[in-house]
């Protein structure tokens, strides 16, 4: 869409936080959330995003673009393989 990459990453993270907080309530209401898995994941993601934001301000956009494309490609390939049952 032509938006700068760093702004796009920030916007995407912000949107995800809203959607995820709404979804978290629904999972919580089911009472079947496993703290032993959920809590380390949450803490890890919080730590990872804090480090990521710190690096983002100094990172080279050209390298960042390649990393994002690579990760999206891997995620897409994984979803495709899972869908095909491979």
């Amino acid at each position, binding site marked *: 869409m032509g938006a700068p990459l760093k702004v796009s990453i920030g916007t995407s993270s912000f949107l995800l936080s809203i959607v995820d907080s709404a979804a978290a309530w629904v999972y919580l*209401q089911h*009472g079947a959330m496993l703290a032993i898995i959920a809590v380390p994941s949450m803490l890890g993601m919080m730590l990872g995003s804090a480090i990521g934001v710190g690096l983002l301000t100094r990172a080279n956009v050209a390298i960042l673009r390649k990393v994002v494309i690579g990760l999206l490609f891997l995620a897409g390939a994984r979803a495709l393989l899972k869908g095909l049952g491979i």
Partner: protein
Amino acid sequence: MQEFRNEDGEKAAAGGLGGAWKRISTTLRARARLRRQQKARIRSQRLKYITREQLVYADVLEIGVTIGRYFLASTFILYVSGITAPKVPLSELTANWSLPAEQYSNLVGIGTGWDWIKLIQYGDYMNFLGIAFLAGITVVCYMRLLPISLRSKDFAFGTIVLLEILVLVLAASGLLVISHSH
């Protein structure tokens, strides 16, 4: 003479301590003032690039996330160290965690909705408080934005904020809990 010298020595020591404390407190106050000025300068610089609403949202989010992170880490340490007894022992948990959510809830005796709040004395369910706190921060951020948008007569933005609050409160209320009937 000896007593006189001792008195003088005590006075000098007290003066020395008092003087040192005064110097330290002056330095600390000066540093705090400098930090406040730097913070204010950074804030005014940031406002050149972003709106006040964005900064307010980020500030509330930062405070909430910091509190939530430490709270969540603390309750998790209490849980894994065994200081607070879990509702579901680890052996039972690993044996049943592949079950569908509803079956798992029925098996371990957990209800739906806000029933988990009755189980917070157990180590595993105490962690739910931190998760709920973190999930609720977004609503608080939006609630902080609502009066700002109304004061600036930005009604379109105010309506979006209000709708976001309604959706999140509806999700938190438990009305959206889906039950599977067989």
